[in-house]
């Protein structure tokens, strides 16, 4: 049975488009390539549409890789070491950090208190990473908070800022230009070049936001400047 359509991205890349139960097949393929990649595969880029597999064309050809994927027995694959974590990330929603709360309130016709509750109550899953190193796209945002990205992007969004747009939320891992509507900011680093394992999150991880005050923010922030603050893992 055919599980995927594919499109070539040169002689050293293939986009695999799952047919049917999109998420399941994609998740299995992502884990498979992360945990037991065939020789020659050097990188994968998952997205909500497809999975781009990048390989060394001197070690494996497009044809062999396509055959390989078609012949995977998806019904019976047992994924080893499929680790995903649930993280608790502190967030301060006070005006100083929730730069767009006023704007969102106007556009979504909600009070700021409502916006904060709606954003904080969901458990999110990292569904894609990109745009910046370590930047997670988190789904699913409450539909009441749905609004487009800012038509006039900021030239500087401070690192740790947490934004919303369409049906997702993001965390900016570093200072960057950006167009998401900012609801708050976390004082911890999700991307820290000082650490060997510098990127905290992986696709599939879950996130709960814990609301903190501005005082707590300052305290954790200054602690984090000196040394990396451990982010709490929620045991399931």
């Amino acid at each position, binding site marked *: 049975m055919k599980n995927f359509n594919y499109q070539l991205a040169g002689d*050293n*890349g293939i986009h695999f488009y799952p047919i049917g139960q999109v998420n399941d097949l994609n998740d299995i393929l992502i884990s498979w390539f992360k945990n037991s990649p065939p020789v020659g595969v050097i990188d994968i880029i998952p997205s909500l549409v497809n999975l781009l597999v990048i390989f060394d064309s001197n070690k494996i050809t497009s044809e062999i890789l396509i055959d390989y994927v078609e012949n995977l027995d998806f019904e019976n694959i047992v994924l080893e070491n499929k680790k995903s974590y649930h993280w608790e990330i502190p967030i301060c929603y006070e005006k100083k950090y929730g730069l767009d709360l006023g704007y969102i309130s106007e556009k979504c016709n909600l009070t700021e208190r409502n916006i904060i509750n709606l954003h904080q109550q969901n458990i999110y899953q990292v569904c894609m990473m990109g745009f910046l190193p370590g930047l997670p796209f988190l789904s699913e945002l409450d539909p009441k908070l749905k609004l487009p990205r800012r038509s006039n992007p900021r030239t500087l969004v401070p690192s740790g800022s947490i934004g919303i747009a369409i049906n997702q939320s993001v965390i900016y891992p570093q200072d960057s230009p950006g167009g998401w509507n900012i609801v708050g900011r976390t004082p911890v680093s999700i991307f820290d070049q000082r650490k060997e394992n510098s990127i905290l999150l992986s696709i599939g991880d879950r996130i709960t936001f814990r609301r903190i005050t501005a005082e707590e923010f300052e305290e954790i922030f200054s602690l984090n400047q000196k040394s990396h603050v451990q982010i709490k893992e929620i045991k399931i």
Partner: protein
Amino acid sequence: MKNKNNNLSFLRVLSGGQTTSLQDLGRIGFQDKGVPPSGVISKKNMKLANKLVGNNECEAVLESFISGPTFEMKGLKALVSIIGGKSTSLEIINRNIKVRPGRSIEIVQNDLVKINNGNDNLISTFSISGGFKVPKILGSKSTNPSVKMGGFNGGFLEDDMLLYLNDNLSDAEEKIIPNFSSPQTIKKLRVILGPHGNKFEKSQIDKFLSTNWEVTKDINRMGIKLSGDEIKSTAGRDMLSDGNQIGSIQITLKGEPIILLPDRGTIGGYPKIATIISSDLDQISNLKISEKIYFESIDVLSAQNISAIKNKKIEKLLSSITKI
């Protein structure tokens, strides 16, 4: 005065040049976390330049776009070499010496060295024996200036920077690639159509392949913008983002092609009409600003054959390197 860096050799940057950065093979295996690999544009240049100075072929090198830096050698002697285009050279100003690509030369304390990128190519590649003393981040010394990662403080070379060197220069001897000639300016890049062929009507793909595209000045380590015509896509504004392959050519909302380079974002929402074959990526270093190029569409089997032949040629060049 005691200085704990007393025994260290370094290059003092006198003039940083336009955009020179430290690059190796790049960060492998982190693209699912959104980390662009970065790394050299031309692996061929990197390997040749390193072999000429006795380094591991994949040691980090300086890649200069458009114009190169000038620096002063401080400390022990070292071997240096350059690979680039027809008019690229390495100048040792104080001794009035100009060295062409394809050989290495010894530099000593207080030598003033200038990388002349030349006018016939986009990028030149400079190596120094022992390599640069720079910590690896996610397995690589490569610089990604757009996210301030790796290399020297995450950025391009700047005036007055000190570039510390690893210290294994003892018995290095000058070397040469016999009968080496630098490549001409490149006019043609070969592509495989797609991945988003279904987002373009046939007339637009034909137009893409028949247009002579000008290499614009709009160039950085993320991409090269081309001009010449307008390519229309059926994708529209709200196309969902997917993975960006290096060498893929995306079409912006304005219909302009951009060749994606190693610092590009890992995902993007523009349709990609075609992808440069892996063995032609090196050739990007021999593009020239304001010159015209065209794309030739080939199939994946041809690309594999071209790649095999090219690898053999590079191996042959590498093994021909000999003492002067």
